[in-house]
């Protein structure tokens, strides 16, 4: 019971969130409600008209054709009006549903932009995608069904009650007493199935994550002949999904037969009491016919409503997962009086910085560094010594745990992220390109750049020659993450991207790792002129490229163990010297 209550609480909370999204569409919602009322009233009036018509045709020779004619015309008018109202109502409901869903998706997407990298680094992309796409889809289906059927259902119940009361009190009582049974049944089933649907959703998420991995890295899977093993893993989840889907689907599909059974009982009850009343002369045959129609119409919405309730539960479970994503705390917003650096010089001061990814594994402790404008800092060290962490901190992808980083004397936390990041040009180890043309990709930092400027940047990055050879040159459309471009070509594009904007500070993370040394040699020259007067951090392994740095940071296990120029460090004969010696060890 406690669990059920908790479920209910969670559902209510989600429902309130959904309502908040619907609020902007309130006028439409009210219009839809009004149309639902009109069409229901008209629909309910039709059986009375039919009853009247039937009463006009008692037996041979006793047919009242005048009364019949007017009743039939009335039916035609009602039907036409009902149809009109229904169509407009459905269209409005579509509109509300799809726009609400679009709003939720937009919010979620905008929210992802503000989520801390800590969250995104820790959650599989596939799971997030599944929340944004298939969960929202299921939610839309449920919401649409809810709108179209919940209104009309409720209105039909009320309307039927009123119409029935005008016909006969006792028979109405029979209907009213038996029908709530179907609600009880429906509610019983719905509460049981909510947790099954949630489990189904979660299992689907798990499966999507695996699919994402297996298909995203299909080449590796093939190379290692790991297909069968992956398939076995997939099948294991698939089997679990089958079990929980079967349960969720079967138990939720019991709602209809059960409520239909209750309806049939109601129908039998009405037939019994109504026929007895008619036999006693208290009701006409036409009246009984109207009543039986009503008994059907009255109970049908209960059916539908319970169906809708199940669907809504499913929808709410999905919406819940969606809102979990939207509710994920955002990264700390920019300080209220955050400044923008005008004409930043690139003086960087790092003071006593502590940082770790997980609380129990300290990584960087008490790190300090002063960089004058235009100086070049090289970061070297064995693999996994925490060099990329420095980038995370400088770009404020992660915030420091203690200490501070200052640029031109301003604490980075007092500068807007946008301003900070646009003052730093970055080329990352993991190249990333967006689906679009080559030109769009290069002009990412400055969408207004002219084609000439883009070409100039590409030339400076030595990307021009390969771009020119592509089928459509700069307008060649490349697919998701670069499609068939080689790793090196992608990296050249990433470099061209930075060449175009030339910010006052640069971060080059193994920027040249996939480019052959000849191209690299040329790029070095371009870089040298680009780095002229720009504060630069270079994470690289090639000692020859960092020899001329103003400062070399030698890192080991998260700490800066040595600091100085190439000559100073060699003279010191410490860790750096050891690294340097091993360069040509075979």
């Amino acid at each position, binding site marked *: 019971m406690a669990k059920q209550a908790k479920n209910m609480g969670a559902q209510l909370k989600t429902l309130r969130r959904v309502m908040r999204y619907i609020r902007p569409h309130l006028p439409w919602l009210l219009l839809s409600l009004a149309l639902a009322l009109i069409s229901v009233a008209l629909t309910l009036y039709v059986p009375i008209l039919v009853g009247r018509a039937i009463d006009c045709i008692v037996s041979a020779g006793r047919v009242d054709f005048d009364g019949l004619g007017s009743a039939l015309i009335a039916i035609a008018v009602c039907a036409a009006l009902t149809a009109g109202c229904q169509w407009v109502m459905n269209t409005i409901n579509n509109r509300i549903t799809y726009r609400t869903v679009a709003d939720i998706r937009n919010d979620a997407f905008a929210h992802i932009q503000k989520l801390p990298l800590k969250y995104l680094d820790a959650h599989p992309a596939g799971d997030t995608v599944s929340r944004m796409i298939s969960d929202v889809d299921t939610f839309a289906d449920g919401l649409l069904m809810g709108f179209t059927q919940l209104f009309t259902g409720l209105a039909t119940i009320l309307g039927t009650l009123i119409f029935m009361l005008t016909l006969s009190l006792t028979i109405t009582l029979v209907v009213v007493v038996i029908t709530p049974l179907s609600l009880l049944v429906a509610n019983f089933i719905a509460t049981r199935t909510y947790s099954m649907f949630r489990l189904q959703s979660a299992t689907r998420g798990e499966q999507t994550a695996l699919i994402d991995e297996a298909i995203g890295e*299909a080449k590796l899977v093939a190379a290692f002949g790991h297909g069968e093993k992956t398939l076995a893993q997939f099948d294991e989840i698939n089997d679990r999904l089958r079990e929980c889907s079967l349960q969720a689907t079967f138990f939720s599909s019991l709602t209809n037969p059960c409520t239909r059974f209750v309806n049939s009982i109601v129908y039998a009850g009405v037939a019994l009491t109504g026929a007895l009343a008619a036999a006693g002369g208290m009701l006409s045959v036409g009246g009984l016919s109207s009543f039986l129609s009503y008994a059907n119409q009255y109970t049908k919405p209960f059916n539908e409503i319970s169906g809708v309730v199940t669907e809504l539960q499913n929808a709410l479970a999905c919406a819940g997962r969606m809102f979990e994503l939207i509710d994920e705390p955002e990264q700390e917003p920019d300080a209220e009086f955050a400044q923008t650096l005008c004409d930043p010089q690139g003086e960087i001061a790092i003071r006593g910085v502590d940082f770790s990814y997980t609380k129990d594994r300290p990584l960087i402790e008490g790190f300090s560094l002063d960089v004058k404008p235009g100086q070049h800092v090289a970061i070297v060290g064995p693999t996994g010594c925490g060099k990329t962490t420095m980038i995370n901190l400088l770009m404020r992808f992660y915030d420091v745990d203690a200490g501070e980083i200052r640029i031109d004397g301003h604490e980075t936390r007092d500068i807007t992220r946008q301003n900070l990041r646009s003052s730093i040009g970055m080329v990352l180890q993991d190249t990333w390109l967006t689906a679009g043309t080559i030109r769009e990709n290069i002009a990412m930092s400055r969408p207004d750049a002219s084609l000439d400027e883009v070409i100039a940047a590409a030339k400076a990055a030595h990307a021009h020659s390969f771009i020119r050879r592509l089928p459509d040159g700069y307008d060649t459309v490349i697919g998701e993450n670069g499609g068939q471009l080689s790793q090196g070509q992608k990296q050249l594009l990433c470099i061209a991207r930075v060449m175009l904007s030339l910010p006052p500070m640069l971060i080059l993370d193994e920027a040249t790792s996939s480019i052959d040394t000849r191209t690299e040699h040329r790029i070095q020259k371009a870089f040298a002129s680009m780095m002229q007067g720009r504060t630069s951090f270079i994470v690289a392994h090639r000692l020859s490229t960092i020899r001329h740095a103003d400062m070399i940071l030698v890192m080991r296990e998260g700490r800066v163990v040595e600091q100085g120029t190439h000559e100073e460090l060699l003279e010191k004969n410490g860790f750096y010297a050891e690294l340097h010696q091993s360069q040509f060890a075979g």
Partner: protein
Amino acid sequence: MVFDLKKLFVYLKDYTRECVLGPLFKLLEASFELIVPLIVASLIDRGILAGDRGWIVKMSLALVLLALVGLGFSVTAQYFSARAAIGFSTKLRHVLMAHIQKLGFAEIDRLGTSTLITRMTSDVNQVQSGVNMVLRLLLRSPFVVFGAMVMAFTIDFSCALIFAAVIFVLCVIVFSIMLMTIPMYRRVQHQLDSVTAATRENLTGVRVIRAFCKEEGEVAKFTKRNKLLTGMQQSVGRISALMNPVTYVVINLAVIALIRSGALKVEAGQLSQGEVVALYNYMSQILVELVKMASLIILLTKSVACGGRIAAILDVSPEQQDGTMRPAKDAPRGSVVFEHVSLQYPGAGDESITDVSFAAAPGQTIGVIGGTGSGKTTLINLIGRFYDATGGRVLVDGMDVRKLSMADLRSCIAIVPQKAVLFKGTIRSNLLWGNEQASQEEILSAVHIAQADDVIAGKTLGLDEPVEQGGRNFSGGQRQRLTIARALVRKPEILILDDSASALDYATDARLRRAIREMDNPPTTFIVSQRAASVLHADLIIVLEDGQVAGTGTHEELMNSCSVYQEIYSSQFSQEEVSAHG
């Protein structure tokens, strides 16, 4: 369109029993429902008009009995339908996954990852609910509709003709709406793909997007695609929304016609009042079923569209044909020969590599060096037959790779790709990728050779340290060394390091190369690199430029004869070093 789906229905075969029993029980339930108006008619004519109260009670009890039996039948039907639908979708997902794994790289490149993911997830879900609904309702509704018509014929022939006419008109309406909406739903789903792609891309490129402060632009792009999707959904919704109102009007016109002609017959004494009520009740039943049908058809059109998208994937057949031969028993293991090999990727304007020839003997180290886009990765992709050469042939262990079974071929090759990717699981589960049967010692020795001892030592759980998706909880260098270890666990005859040392410092890189050379049975090792230092000591160095071989030979030979190699070397080492090592 129905043709597409045949391919999918095959997977319902295991559930033939369920597929028959589900609808069958539904039909039984429906037939009991069809008796109801007859009972009511007799209740009116014999009970009310003739004043037989005992008959009224009896008939009411009969109604309760019918309801009870109907409940039993329909619960059974629901169970069988759910089983069939879910069994079907489970099977379908399995088949899709297996099929996608069989696709060649060229096909996967072309299809794109996100569309494959939507098809495996949301499309399959949609088809599942479609199958479930079809089994539950698709037979039932037409059965009730036609059943009602047949029952009407038993009451009065000319009135029943009205039923026949109505059913015809309704069929026309239902099918035309369906025909209009199916292609529209397909477009909606296509647009949903594009929204999925935008989301995925945003997640994978989050660092770059933030570095370039592109968040707002991304949101704008997403909003635009999303808006387009919403617009498409609304326009298809408007047409679908016609179904109910139009059928409602048609049915009511039929009711009017029915009562009017009924009235004439009653006046003439050919029909009783109770029978007119029964006819009207049958018409109402048709209406109720049609409402259900309408919502079913909306769902169904979506499902058909989704099913078509799934079938389209299953239609993509891998272009490569698997070979069946095995290398001769006495053939030397680990030899690789290229004979005038060229490759042009599908859709590419020019060959990526042209006329490449070389021979690598077992145990040798082959260096592949060259500029960006010079064809290095292409060359090594041909060894494992990830693409088929468009000219010349590739021989492994003396056999044309196209004649070898792909599984055999790849089982003797281990690749360490440029991009170091680990999979969700533990370090151990990742290393076991190379060889399921590897013992603890074999794993540890591979880790040792890959210079990854400290990676394991640095983790509290050692080999059992969890790995998150993509290996995000490891640094680039750690991942790279683990991927090398993964390849070594395989004890391959041919080891391919595709620029795999790029995230390693020189010292680690050098120790790694030495360790591989000192292995007991050293594999034929291909080292693809940008660094002259990495290939310096190779038995054979292949220098590529723009897809052509610019030179082959040892370091010394190339330093004398190959200007491209000389340029690479001197760009990397300072003058003193060139004279010291050259």
